[in-house]
C-alpha cells in the first residue's frame, strides 16, 4: 500500500475537527457493516439448506426488535446530525477581524484581488495563522472554490456574492480546485493557495504593486463613471450621499428597509431600480455590462471605506463586537 495516500493534509483550524467527525462516522459505520455482514455470513452457514425437503417454521417478526433497530439508528443519526451541524454552524461566519480577499471566477481561471491592490491569477497568497475571509463571485457560470487541505468549499455564483473563510495553520502550497463543473477546461481551473509567514506576506503585498489599492481604484471608478456627479458627498445631489451608508439601514420608497451590505451595493449598481431609497427618484441608469465584476468589487470597497470612515465606523465596530 506504500505510496497510496489515504488522508489529505490538515492545514487549517477546522481541518482536524472535520476529520474527527469523518473518522467517527467511519468507525460507527464500519462497526455496523461488520456487525451486519458477519451476522449474514453466520446465518448463511448455520442455516444453509441441508435437505430439499426442509420447511422452516414461519416467523412473523418481532415488535421489540423492530423498535430496537429503529431506535438505535435514530439515536446514531441524531448524534451525527448534531455533531455535523454544530461544526458547520460554528464555522459558517468568519471571525471578526478576518482579513478580506476578493475572488472572481471565470472560465477557466481564478482572479484574486487583495484590498491593498495586489492581484494574482490562480494563486492565493495568505499569511499563516490569520483568519481570511473570501468574498467571491463569478463572471459567467457557477464555479466552486475548494481547498481540500483546509476542508472548505463554497460555490461561486454569477450575480451574487458568496463568502467563506479559513485560517491556515501550515506553511506551504495547497491545491485549489474548481469543484463545480464549469465547461470544457473545468479540470484546468485549478491553482494554489500559498501560505507564508505574516511578514513575508506583508513584503509580498508591497512587492511589485503597479496598481492602486481596491479603495483607490474604486474611488477612481466612482469619478470615471460619473457616479460622483449625482451622489454628492453632502447629499445635495439628485442621489443619496454614500458617505456613512455602508453597514447601515437604508429606508426604501416601498416602506421596507435593507442593510447596505456588499450584495445590496452590487445590486444597486447593476439594477438601480430594484430598491429605491426613500425620497429619491429612480433616475440612475444600470451599469450592467459596463463594469467587470472586479471593478464592481473595487467600487464596493470604496463605498465601504467611505461608509466606515465617515460616520458609522463606531457603530460598525460595536456590531462586530457583538458577534
Amino acid at each position: 500500500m506504500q505510496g497510496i495516500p489515504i488522508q489529505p493534509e490538515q492545514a487549517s483550524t477546522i481541518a482536524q475537527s472535520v476529520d474527527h467527525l469523518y473518522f467517527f462516522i467511519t468507525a460507527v459505520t464500519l462497526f455496523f457493516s461488520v456487525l451486519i455482514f458477519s451476522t449474514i455470513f453466520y446465518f448463511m452457514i448455520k442455516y444453509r439448506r441441508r435437505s430439499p425437503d426442509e420447511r422452516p417454521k414461519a416467523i412473523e417478526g418481532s415488535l421489540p426488535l423492530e423498535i430496537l433497530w429503529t431506535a438505535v439508528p435514530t439515536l446514531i443519526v441524531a448524534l451525527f446530525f448534531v455533531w455535523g451541524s454544530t461544526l458547520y454552524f460554528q464555522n459558517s461566519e468568519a471571525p471578526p477581524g478576518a482579513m478580506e480577499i476578493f475572488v472572481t471566477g471565470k472560465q477557466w481561471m481564478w482572479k484574486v484581488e487583495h484590498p491593498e491592490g495586489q492581484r494574482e491569477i490562480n494563486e492565493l497568497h495568505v499569511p499563516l495563522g490569520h483568519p481570511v475571509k473570501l468574498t467571491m463571485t463569478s463572471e459567467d457560470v457557477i464555479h466552486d472554490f475548494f481547498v481540500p487541505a483546509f476542508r472548505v468549499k463554497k460555490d461561486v455564483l454569477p450575480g451574487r456574492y458568496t463568502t467563506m473563510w479559513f485560517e491556515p495553520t501550515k506553511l506551504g502550497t495547497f491545491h485549489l480546485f474548481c469543484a463545480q463543473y464549469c465547461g470544457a477546461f473545468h479540470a484546468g481551473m485549478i491553482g494554489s493557495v500559498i501560505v507564508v509567514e505574516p511578514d513575508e506576506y506583508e513584503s509580498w503585498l508591497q512587492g511589485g504593486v503597479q496598481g492602486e489599492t481596491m479603495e483607490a481604484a474604486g474611488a477612481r471608478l466612482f469619478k470615471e463613471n460619473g457616479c460622483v456627479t449625482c451622489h454628492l458627498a453632502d447629499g445635495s445631489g439628485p442621489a443619496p450621499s454614500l458617505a456613512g451608508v455602508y453597514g447601515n439601514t437604508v429606508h426604501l420608497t416601498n416602506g421596507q428597509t435593507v442593510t447596505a451590505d456588499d450584495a445590496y451595493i452590487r445590486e444597486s449598481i447593476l439594477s438601480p431600480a430594484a430598491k429605491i431609497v426613500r425620497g429619491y427618484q429612480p433616475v440612475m441608469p444600470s451599469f450592467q455590462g459596463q463594469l467587470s465584476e472586479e471593478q464592481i468589487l473595487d467600487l464596493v470597497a470604496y463605498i465601504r471605506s467611505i461608509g466606515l470612515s465617515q460616520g458609522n465606523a463606531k457603530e460598525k465596530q460595536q456590531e462586530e463586537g457583538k458577534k
Partner: protein
Amino acid sequence: MSTATLEPRVQSPRNYLNADYGWKSWLFTVDHKRIALLYMASITFFFVIGGFFAFLMRLHLIEPQGALVQPETYNKLFTLHGVIMIFFFLIPSIPAVLGNFLVPLMIGARDLAFPKLNLLSWYIYIVGGLFTLYSAIAGGVDTGWTFYTPYSSTYSNTQVTAVAVGVFITGFSSILTGLNFIVTIHKMRAPGLTWFRLPLFLWAIYATSIIMTLGTPVLAITIFLLALEHLFHVGIFSPQLGGDPLLFQHLFWFYSHPAVYIMILPAMGVVSEIIACFARKRIFGYKIVGFSSVAIAVLGFLVWGHHMFVTGQSVYAGLIFSFLSFLVAIPSAIKVFNWTSTLYKGSISYEAPMLYALGFIGLFTMGGLTGMFLASLATDVHLNGTYFIVAHFHYIMVGGAVMGYLGGLHFWWPKISGRKYPNGWAMLSAAIIFIGFNLTFFPQFILGYLGMPRRYAFYPAEFQVLNVMSSAGASILGIGYLIPLVYFIWSMRYGPVAEANPWGATGLEWQTPSPPPTENFAEIPVVTEEAYAYSAEEEASRA
C-alpha cells in the same frame, strides 16, 4: 409462415411467446409481458452504450493528463453516460421490465389496467431515446447529467436542446407507467388478495409509482424551462437575463433526488422476493418492510436541499435538509435488519438470484452508510463535488439498483423465457461483478476524501494510483456484465426447458406455466394466504 416451422412447437402449449411470430405482433402488442420484453431489449441497448462510455472514461483516466480523448470529449462522455444510464436504463429498468411483466401476474390479473397506454409508454420512451441518440451523434452534449444552469442554458454550445427534449419526452413514459401501476394495483387484485397479502415487490413498485407520477412532472417543467432559456434567452435561470442561477438546482433535485428512490426501491422489492424464496421464510416484519418503502418515497421528496449545502443557501435550510436526509436513512436501515433476520432459522440455498440479492445487501449497505458522511453538514462541505459522491451514488445505483435488476432477471428468467440459464456461469458472474464493482468504486471514496473533484478530464499526478485501480476494476466489472448477456441469449434457444415453479417459490406468478399464456391465468386465482407462505403447514394447506 409455413406449417413446417411451426411443427416442433406444436407440442409446447400456447404461451405469450409462441402466440404469434410476426413483427407486428410485437410492435403492436398490448400484452404487458411482450411490452416488458420490448423494454428489456431497449434498456439493454442503452446499457451497452452507457457502459461503453463509462469504459472509455475509465480508460482515459489511467493517466493524469488523460490518455485517450480531449477534455471536451471527456465532458461529453460523462454527460451522455449519466443521461443514458439514469433516464434510459436505471429509471425504466426494474419498473418497466420486471414491473410490467410481474405486476399483473403477481396480483392475478390478465393485464395492466390500461394495456394500450402501456404500449404508448414504450413508444414515448423510444422517441425520447431517439432524441438522445441524435444528440450523441450530432456532436454530443457537455453539461453533465445534472444540466446545471447557467452553464447549460447560456454557455454550452452543444446539443442541449435535443437532450432536453429527449429527457422531457421520456418523462411522460415514466408518468404513464406509474399511473398504470397505481390503478392496476388498486383495482385489479385477484379475489382475496388484500393489501397485506401483496408481495413486497408490489409495495415497492407502488411506492415507486407514486414518485414517478408526482415527481416527474416537476422534472419535465424544469427541463422545458431550461430549453426555453437555451433557445429563446428567456430569463429564468441566468442572472445576466435576470434569472436565478440556483432555482434550477432546487427544481432539478426536487425530482432527481426522489429519482434515486425510483431506482433503488424496486430493487429492494426484488431482494425481498428473492430472500424469502431462497430462505423459505416469510419476510421478517413484513408490514414494516412494506411501510418503510412508502416512508422512503414520502421522505425522499423533502431532502433535495442536501445537494446544495455549499451553494451558499441559508445555514438554517442546511440544518433542516441535513436532518431530513438523516431520517431517510432509518427506513433503509430497517429494511436491511429485516432482510438479515429473515435468514434466521431459514433454509438457505445458494443459487444465482440469491447471490445477487446478498450482493445487493452488501453494496447497498455500504452505499447507504457512506450517505451519512454526505448528510452531515460539516463533512459534506469537504466531500461534496468530489469522487466520494461518485462512489456513493454508484454503490446505490449500480451496486444496489443494477444488482437488484440482475437478481430479478435471474430469478424470473425461467418464467419470462421458459428456459433455464447455466447456474454455474450465473454464480460466477455474480462473484465477478461483486469483486469488480468494489475494486472500481471503493478507491473513489478515498480519492474523494483526498479532494479529487469529479468531472475532471485530467488530474494531479498524486491521484494516479487510485485511478488506475478504479480503471482496472472497471474492466473486471465489464466482463461480469458481458457474461450474463451471453448466457441469457444462449439460454433462449439452448437452455433446458423450465418448469412452472423452478425455485419452489410462492406467489401467483409461479402458479401459471412458464412462459405464461397470453391471458396469464386459465382461471383467475383466489388468494387465501399471505405472500410468503413457505412453512410446512401452509404448504400442506395449499396441497
